[in-house]
């Protein structure tokens, strides 16, 4: 933590004051982070307490896993998106847009398909999840390692290959699903569509532990990510081994994607939405801040959104759809505004 709290690149507090004096209305990134933290905390509190009648202990026990799942998933998506964007050298991509989510679903389907329904239902879900995650890491490294580690990482190619891979994985998965017997299909289908009401609470603990480990490793790599955003060549010349960094990070991102898809299902545009908002609010000069902001925004969106939908509109399942709707609009807006450059 200490190395991130300190400015990673030569800015003193005085500079900040100086600059904030010049840009009157805009809060500093520290203030912005504090604000986001307060909002995130408030959403969590409201989510846990609003409308509780009768037995508090029971209600809290019911809601706590759901809250934890939203925090874990929000953070996983935010962290994987911001880091992948820096690796890819642009702020338009996200793991889900490059086909990571579909890859995980294909792996899940394949596992059930190959193991057979009886075994798939008998096997310990945590063991199955760990196996799926391991396969996911392996595949992500082989498939995307070359693509992101190579000398030319131009956006069009990455986007095109990502979209093609995504469609390929998804259609292969749905083809296999058709061949499955109905029982096996039922085992899987929970994870095909994002839903925050059918959270896999059996995986929650292992997911939280995994996310904790991945976050700790990324935290140590954060200064290198800051350097990498100067471009691969400059980063190399400053002593960052960008090939190694890419490989390690891809493995970690694969774990993050596995966790979030396994817990709630695929969310295509959510990562892009929170990462873009984070860059707008705190900039992208320091990954520690960008990542933290993106995670907080993700928690605010998920927990706050779920509270509003559940309590105000009495909807029960729509959060995934609403989030995808706004995320999709953000994606289109970004592409139209940037014109791909």
């Amino acid at each position, binding site marked *: 933590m200490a190395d991130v709290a300190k400015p*990673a*690149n*030569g800015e003193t507090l005085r500079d900040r004051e100086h600059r904030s004096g010049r840009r009157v209305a805009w809060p500093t990134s520290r203030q912005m982070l504090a604000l986001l933290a307060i909002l995130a905390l408030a959403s969590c509190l409201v989510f846990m307490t609003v409308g509780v009648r009768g037995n508090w202990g029971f209600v809290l026990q019911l809601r706590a896993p759901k809250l934890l799942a939203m925090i874990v998933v929000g953070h996983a998506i935010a962290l994987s998106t911001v880091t992948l964007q820096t690796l890819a050298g642009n702020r338009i991509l996200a793991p889900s847009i490059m086909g990571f989510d579909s890859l995980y679903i294909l792996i899940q389907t394949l596992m059930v398909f190959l193991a057979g329904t009886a075994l798939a239902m008998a096997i310990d879900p945590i063991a199955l999840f760990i196996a799926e995650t391991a396969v996911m890491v392996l595949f992500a490294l082989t498939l995307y390692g070359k693509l992101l580690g190579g000398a030319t990482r131009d956006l069009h190619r990455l986007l095109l290959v990502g979209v093609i891979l995504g469609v390929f994985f998804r259609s292969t998965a749905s083809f296999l699903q058709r061949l499955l017997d109905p029982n096996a299909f039922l085992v899987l289908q929970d994870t095909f569509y994002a839903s925050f009401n059918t959270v896999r609470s059996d995986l929650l603990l292992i997911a939280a532990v995994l996310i904790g480990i991945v976050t700790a490793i990324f935290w140590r790599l954060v200064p290198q990510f800051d350097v990498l955003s100067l471009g691969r060549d400059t980063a190399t010349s400053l*002593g960052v081994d960008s090939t190694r960094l890419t490989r390690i990070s891809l493995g970690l991102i694969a774990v993050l994607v596995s966790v979030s898809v396994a817990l709630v299902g695929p969310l295509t545009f959510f990562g892009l939405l929170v990462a873009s908002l984070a860059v707008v609010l705190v900039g992208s000069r320091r990954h520690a801040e960008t990542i933290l902001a993106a995670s907080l925004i993700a928690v605010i969106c998920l927990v706050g959104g779920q509270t509003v939908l559940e309590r105000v509109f009495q909807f029960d399942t729509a959060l995934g759809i609403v989030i995808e709707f706004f995320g999709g609009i953000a994606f289109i807006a970004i592409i139209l505004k940037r014109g791909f450059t």
Partner: protein
Amino acid sequence: MIEAAALTKLYGKARVVDEASLTLASPGVTAIIGPNGAGKSTLLSMIARLLPIDGGRALIDGLDVTRTRGDELAKRISILKQENGLMARLTARDLIGFGRFPHSKGRLTPTDYEKIEEALTFLDLLPFADRFLDEMSGGQRQRAFVAMVLAQDTRAILLDEPLNNLDMRHAVAMMRLMRRAADELGKIVVVVLHDINFACAYADRIIAMQGGRIVVDGPVEEVVSEETIEAVFGLPVMVRDVEGQRTCLFRA
């Protein structure tokens, strides 16, 4: 110490750098000149391990650049590329701070802050220190990138066209800075220049490249003659000594 032995780069069948060899052992300013596409940038990039080497080898202080750890080399050699793109929106001071990364790994010490201020002062950037790079003029930005390279404080410094976008005053200031770096701090400076007169005035040694090969390598007086420059650039020129300064003019 920089040593290149028969360095070669191939793109398909084209040998864009063809068995280039050079040794730079002592402090000084070496200018690389040559027409567009001669392979100057490619040569520097291979020496600085930014491009894979297809033949021969490059050594920095005796360490093979393809086999030595990147963070070890980053304390020995720095490079300014001809073009620089950024993903993040940074101020000049942020950028220059990154030059300290090989030494501080992202935790700046008081020494680092001193070096950053020093680089800002040397490149006349103090008035713009906290301005975002995309809010600066081309020349100011170019100076900020050079300042980052200086802040890296390596013995070997490679600069690919550092005078790009600079006005006459700042170009002269930049070359004087190179001289001081060599004379006072013992740096080995290699600089790609298109203006031969800057090379004449400030370099100890000139290397001329053409079609991927090093065709001439020697002290200024030897390299800058009408025959040699005409042969390298394929352009008739006049070379004169003006008040003791070797000068090269194109014929209109």
